[in-house]
């Protein structure tokens, strides 16, 4: 089966700065794939090119079988997105936000069912700006699913969430993948990538410097003779925190 996302020698410069400098990778149907890297590594630029929001200077990108450069709106029809630093219009209740975006895709959806699938059915009549951070992220995922996308792009979906909300979102992402949707995400959290992703690409300076499954990357590192100076603890602070506060979602 051909890859659902296929990127070859993608380049994008802003003046002197090479934001994306020859990136190539494939994402297979049904994968959870992450782009990792420090700030300014080129993750968001890469993702926004794939989403049809920016034009690459050169290189090709096929998303769900559509050439992003030739048919950006065709790509938009087939993907779901969650953008960094974006927001929904104010004074709309959660359910109207879903209806609104369905309208943008010229689709009719069961907005209550979609809200239920992200655990927001009891917030349907709440103004979206009154939702908590985690709830808003889940609403934004519900919105990204209105067009039954083949690929879901999540740009730093868990930034700013508390540990409970993060784990809740991971479960949601797994459930979406279980329904056959490919997920391509970016994150700063390496534990998130390790727990969630089938494969990760590590970017730095606009290039991909490593690409494999988390386990293989760790094995390769150990194979190069790496050892941690301190013996791995049986538990970490994350475990303590979750043990003390539980895994239930906290929301006003």
């Amino acid at each position: 089966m051909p890859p659902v996302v296929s990127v070859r020698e993608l380049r994008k410069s802003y003046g002197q700065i090479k934001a994306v400098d020859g990136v190539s990778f494939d994402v297979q149907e049904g994968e959870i794939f992450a782009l990792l890297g420090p700030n300014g590594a080129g993750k968001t630029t890469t993702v926004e090119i794939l989403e049809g929001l920016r034009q690459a200077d050169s290189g090709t990108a096929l998303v769900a079988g559509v050439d992003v450069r030739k048919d950006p709106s065709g790509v938009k029809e087939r993907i779901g997105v969650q953008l960094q630093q974006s927001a929904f219009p104010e004074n709309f209740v959660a359910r109207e936000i879903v209806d609104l975006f369905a309208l943008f895709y010229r689709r009719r959806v069961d907005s209550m069912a979609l809200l239920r699938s992200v655990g927001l059915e009891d917030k349907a009549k709440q103004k979206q700006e009154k939702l908590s951070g985690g709830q808003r992220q889940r609403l934004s995922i519900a919105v990204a699913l209105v067009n039954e996308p083949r690929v879901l792009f999540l740009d730093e979906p868990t930034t700013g969430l508390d540990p409970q909300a993060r784990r809740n979102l991971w479960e949601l992402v797994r459930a979406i993948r279980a329904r056959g949707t490919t997920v391509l995400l970016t994150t700063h959290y390496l534990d998130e990538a390790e727990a969630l992703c089938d494969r990760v690409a590590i970017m730095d300076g606009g290039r991909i410097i490593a690409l494999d499954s988390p386990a293989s990357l760790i094995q390769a590192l150990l194979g190069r003779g790496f050892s941690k100076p301190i013996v791995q603890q049986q538990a970490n602070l994350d475990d303590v925190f979750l043990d003390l506060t539980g895994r239930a979602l906290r929301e006003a």
Partner: protein
Amino acid sequence: MRQILGYTALLLRAYTRDRTAMFFGFLFPLLFMALFGVLNFGGSVRVDLAVVDEAKNEQSAAFISTLGKIETLRITTTGDRDAEVAKLTSGDRDLVLVIPSDFRIAPARPGSSVPALTLYESSAQPDTAAVGRAILSSVVTDMSFAATQTAPVVTLRREEVTGRELKYVDFLTPGIIGMTIMQLGISSVAFAFVAERQRGVIRRVMATPIPRRNYIAAHVLQRLILAMVQVLILLAVAVFAFKVTVVGSLGALLLVTVLGAVVFLCLGFAVTGLLATENQAAVATQIVTLPQLFLSGVFFSRDAVPAFLKPIADYLPLTFLNDALREIATTGATLVDVGGDILGLFAWAVVSFVAAYRLFRLD
């Protein structure tokens, strides 16, 4: 189309939850109207009319008594022509009407001329003179008509004549409507789009396949509908709560409203294209709207505008809009009568549409 209409409907529903927008869109203009309506700034127009009766016959007396029944007119009949004209010059009179010695109310006999009333006006008071002239010519027309039709009802259309008595709220209401449309067009567009651009709302929408023109069309349509609703509510409150007399047709008012709204929406989109932050929006909308608020005759007659600003004031979009609305509402003008203003609005619509098309950007 379903996309545009559906989006418009959702935008309208969201608008009803936006308390700030509702306040500035509906309550604020009503407060203005209430405030100025209660103060009754300027009072009602009164015309000091001196009548010099050189005929002194039964018919001239009847004519004078007819004039006496009109509330707007304050009539004196004591002086002679020279004395009264002198008082007109000094500003003690607004108008002087001279009834010639051959005055009579009867069909003209063949070969003889019709008696001519002479009306002296003061160039210092063009407004009051115009009101007085309108009343007098209406009375004279009525009388002539009555005489030639041999139906002796001089008082037949007197009600309509007194109906022309302009209260300040009558004058004010079209101005407030014009102001509201201007605010809706410019401020609501500038603040909404600048804020949505800054918060990343537009970025999110542009990540969906909705065409930009549909997105903008829905926002324009929503505001056109709002403009109509605002005007209808303002008119309803004006008529029922402040007893404002609207003489002209509602259809004509709404048509002019829509045209005005189009002009100001285009201007709003053009201005928004130049703005990046909400602070800039606050300054820019004031720069565009404030001069028009004072120069375009919202609260006071444009006669108060200093002469050196007149050439500008006469061509501001709100001037055309207010003049047209006011002519229709207070004198019953038709769309043809206000053709000049409509032409002016059309010109502004074209110019501002081109500007909006060039300047406005979504991201």
